[in-house]
């Protein structure tokens, strides 16, 4: 509880992201093919959005389950705030992906299975907020939202992780090598990893920070 008011991890978030935004442009990147060139550096900005989103949404579902056990409104504040920040990251991932895809795959949206899956996952999370907004009774709202949150989180697995792997995809990890002109996780060398992982931690911590601000605001409002 007090952790959310501590300053040190917010500094860590800033330093990691400042490091990412500087060193991400300087670090030597492997030359995979002529098409990717420097846009491989998007691995430091586009991909961490999805990593951070998964972590934030996991925290959200964690508190949703906790709410169902405790029925304490504070747990619902946590669940809602982390769902909101996670969804924001998802949309940032979609839009940055569209920019990258425009120059890599020829169009911002090519109906790639992972693109479609991510869009569906985001719509499922938007429905979470619609559902919340449709109810005025606080206990009922929190309870139904928590149950739906659990459904929404587990829908991330087929939409983002399983279905895109069962078919050919422009994204790395699809079936066969034909449909994958981009990069694999294996294509990241040690240099790139030294930026990629700090970026993931930094973006996640920033997301946690923003979420805690929303939680603190809700707590103040509830007083």
């Amino acid at each position, binding site marked *: 509880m007090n952790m959310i*008011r501590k*300053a040190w991890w*917010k*500094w860590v*978030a*800033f*330093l990691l*992201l*400042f490091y990412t*935004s*500087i060193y*991400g*442009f*300087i670090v030597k990147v492997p030359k995979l093919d002529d098409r990717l060139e*420097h846009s491989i550096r998007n691995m430091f900005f586009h991909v961490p959005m999805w990593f951070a989103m998964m972590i934030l949404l996991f925290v959200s579902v964690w508190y949703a389950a906790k709410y169902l056990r405790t029925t304490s409104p504070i747990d619902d504040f946590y669940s809602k705030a982390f769902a909101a920040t996670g969804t924001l990251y998802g949309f940032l991932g979609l839009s940055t992906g569209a920019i990258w895809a425009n120059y890599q795959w020829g169009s911002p949206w090519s109906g790639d299975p992972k693109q479609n899956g991510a869009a569906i996952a985001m719509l499922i999370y938007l429905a979470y907020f619609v559902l919340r907004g449709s109810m005025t009774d606080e206990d009922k709202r929190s309870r139904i939202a928590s149950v739906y949150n659990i459904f929404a989180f587990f829908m991330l697995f087929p939409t983002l992780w399983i279905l895109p792997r069962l078919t050919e995809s422009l994204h790395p990890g699809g079936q066969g090598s034909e449909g994958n002109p981009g990069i694999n996780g294996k294509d990241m060398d040690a240099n790139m990893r030294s930026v990629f992982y700090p970026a993931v931690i930094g973006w996640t911590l*920033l997301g946690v*920070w*923003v979420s805690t*601000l929303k939680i*603190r*605001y809700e707590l*103040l409002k509830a007083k």
Partner: protein
Amino acid sequence: MKKYLKSFLLVLFALGCFVTTQAQDVAANANIDVMRSNGKIYVVMAVVATIVTGLFLYVYSIDKKISKLENK
């Protein structure tokens, strides 16, 4: 509050120094202005660094405002 601001500016300054020395190394090797080298990619780097810094300053200010309300 002032104490925090001071340490924040100090860290920012130190980071700035680090970046400048790094940039100078690159410039010495390439013998051209670093900001104009490599397809002006470092201009983008400066933009991204500014956005990240600005974003954090904004979130920091919201954090401060909420803390003030909480202490009331």
